[in-house]
């Protein structure tokens, strides 16, 4: 400010203009930001404190230091189960969805009659109610009467999997449905990415006699790198905090075979004893894991950019 008083008039006017523009800009984002701050940011910040306390959602939290975390890692095998299941889901769901959505996008990135229909069809699962999805897929996965096992038996599999009623196959079943549901959404992002790749590159490659595969490998994939990076980050976070699909499809069962961290957080907080402090500690662990994955991805991305 001291420089502003000593400088000449035009500069002063410019700084006033800048301040005015800043205020105007702030006022535009204010409605959104206030909502975000009140409903999301402040509760998240409070969570960082609550995670180190014993708290039942009412009254003053009791500071317990690292007790929640000690219990979490040393005396809570359910948490370890949930952690492994979450990593399992992410490790399978991420590459499958990435491959499926990229494949769909490349397939549907042509000028052909009826393409809009197929794009809509691929996107449809994403906008369908997850409860309806879970109900129908559960019926399809029914071990004795479901069409999937009937088909498997028809093609000669005498002992098809038990799907959602088998602790071995429940997670694959959930992953299949999760991939099917989300690939349409990420396909749209990939489609948008594909539009940004200049057509001349393909034409030039074609003139040079490059095969379809080598065009995909040397033009499409590198051209999609920013999109792929974005989708990988989003998919990792989405997979790590998967909740609704598992909750309505298997509710974490059989046993704990599909119990994921988000459901454990919910269970600890809202079912039973109402341990919001302990639930916050689990949420904090999930946050740190997501943050860690994202940082690693950023580092890898930056390195390969160079």
């Amino acid at each position, binding site marked *: 400010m001291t420089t502003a008083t000593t400088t000449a008039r035009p500069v002063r006017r410019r700084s006033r203009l800048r301040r005015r523009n800043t205020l105007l800009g702030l*006022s535009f984002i204010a409605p959104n930001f206030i909502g975000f701050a009140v409903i999301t940011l402040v509760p998240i910040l409070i969570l960082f404190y609550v995670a180190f306390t014993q708290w039942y959602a009412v009254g003053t939290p009791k500071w317990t230091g690292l007790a929640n975390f000690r219990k979490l890692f040393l005396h809570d095998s359910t948490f370890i189960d949930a952690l492994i299941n979450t990593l399992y889901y992410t490790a399978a769901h991420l590459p499958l969805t990435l491959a499926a959505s990229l494949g769909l996008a490349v397939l549907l990135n042509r000028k052909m009659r009826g393409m809009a229909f197929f794009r809509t069809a691929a996107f449809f699962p994403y906008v369908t109610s997850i409860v309806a999805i879970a109900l129908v897929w559960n019926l399809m996965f*029914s071990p*004795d009467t479901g069409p999937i096992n009937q088909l498997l038996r028809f093609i000669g599999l005498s002992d098809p999997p038990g799907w959602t009623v088998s602790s071995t196959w429940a997670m694959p079943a959930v992953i299949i449905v999760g991939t099917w549901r989300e690939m349409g959404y990420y396909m749209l992002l990939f489609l948008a990415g594909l539009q940004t790749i200049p057509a001349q590159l393909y034409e030039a490659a074609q003139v040079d006699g490059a095969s379809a595969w080598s065009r995909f490998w040397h033009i499409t994939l590198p051209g999609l790198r920013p999109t792929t990076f974005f989708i990988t980050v989003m998919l990792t976070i989405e997979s790590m905090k998967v909740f609704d699909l598992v909750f309505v499809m298997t509710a974490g069962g059989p046993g704990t075979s599909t119990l994921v961290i988000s459901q454990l957080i919910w269970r600890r907080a809202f079912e039973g004893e109402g341990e919001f402090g302990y639930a916050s500690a689990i949420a904090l662990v999930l946050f740190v894991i997501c943050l860690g994955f994202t940082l690693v991805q950023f580092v890898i991305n930056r390195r390969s950019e160079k």
Partner: protein
Amino acid sequence: MKKTRFGLLAALALATALSLTACGSGDTGDTTDTGSDEPAGPVTLTMSGWSFQTTPEFQVLVDAFEADNSDVKIELKEYDANDYETLMLADIASGTATDIITIKQAKFTNQWVNQGALADISSVVSALPNNVSGAASYTVNGVNYGVPYRQDSWVLFYNKDLFDKAGIAYPDGSWTWDDYAAQAKALTQALSADGVKGAYEHSWQSTLQGFANAQSPGADVTNGADYTYLKPYYERVLDLQQSGAQETYGNITTNKLTYQGQFGKQSAAMMAMGSWYVATLIAQQASGDADSFAWGMAPAPQYDSSTTGTSKTPITFGDPTGLGLNPKLEGDKLAAAQRFLQFAASEEAGVALAQIGILSSVAADSVTQAYFAQAGIATDDLSQFAISTHDTRPENPPHAKIAAIQTALGEAHSAIMSESTPVDDALADATAKIKDELA
């Protein structure tokens, strides 16, 4: 510049307005005002409930109470039945919980006590007559927090028409679980042409563990040391499932079978279920949602013959539904609310509830008579015995970690019933988790 200032002013005004309305709603939402400044008139209390359309019991209780107490008015506040506890938690945390808090699931008592949402009403509970059962479910560290007005217990429903068709004698109250299993197989075989199964056991953990916890000698679900007593119950049911005498757990969960559909549409000849199903079955037979057939109730099958037969008292299980009070209540409001709680566990309230098919926590002949006066109910002697004579043990005994214990046992249930984990392994896993939880 002018525009900016206007914008700032507008933002400030908005912020002030928001904070004002926040305070305002806090004031109007405060239900615990003792009303000392108001002129003397009827005391108004609020009470929580759920799904009034299908759960008329709250209105029945309030109407019966208000008829005798013109100085008290009770306003019911409706919550969603499935999210009742979560919604209540929101109201408890924001200080807007109702004056009278209905405790839908006894296992949440401990959480609400932790949250300071329930008042100590030991004085009301200790004044209750001896024939009221279930208050122990709301006792935490020797302090009473709830008055039970409703007490369901589990009985064996059976389809008389299907038993006749199979040529098998009706249950006579002498059955152990082994008898039940043998009859289920015999019924399945006799009715195989129609595709009817002998028994239906719903996918809930209580359909098995509730009985095992209540009936097994020395069993205590809260002790955390040993759950091997569940094993014979599981082995029996797995055998029934594998032999086709009852629907498999997998089919029930993936096809979302309902117990009302399975028994009401005559897919199974018998089913152990809570007594709340009586009112549902009567209503569904009247509306056509269930087939018309003759049915009856028998005492739940027993662990061994020491508690079978109509000369003994069969052991079964069930949780009460109760009423607690907001700790902020004082003065006239507190006195009126306490009066209401006393009324809810009275014979008069029990008769009013029985007339709409709800079993009161009060054991009295007048209540049983009113219950069996309902149109469409089975009135044979054994049905009356099953409803009126039983030792009903709490499904969720009061314990600081009861919900966590039930969660671990529930995981074992789905692991065993889906036949993905051997009984011993699943029970050992649950025991280890519960030990951790109790440590």
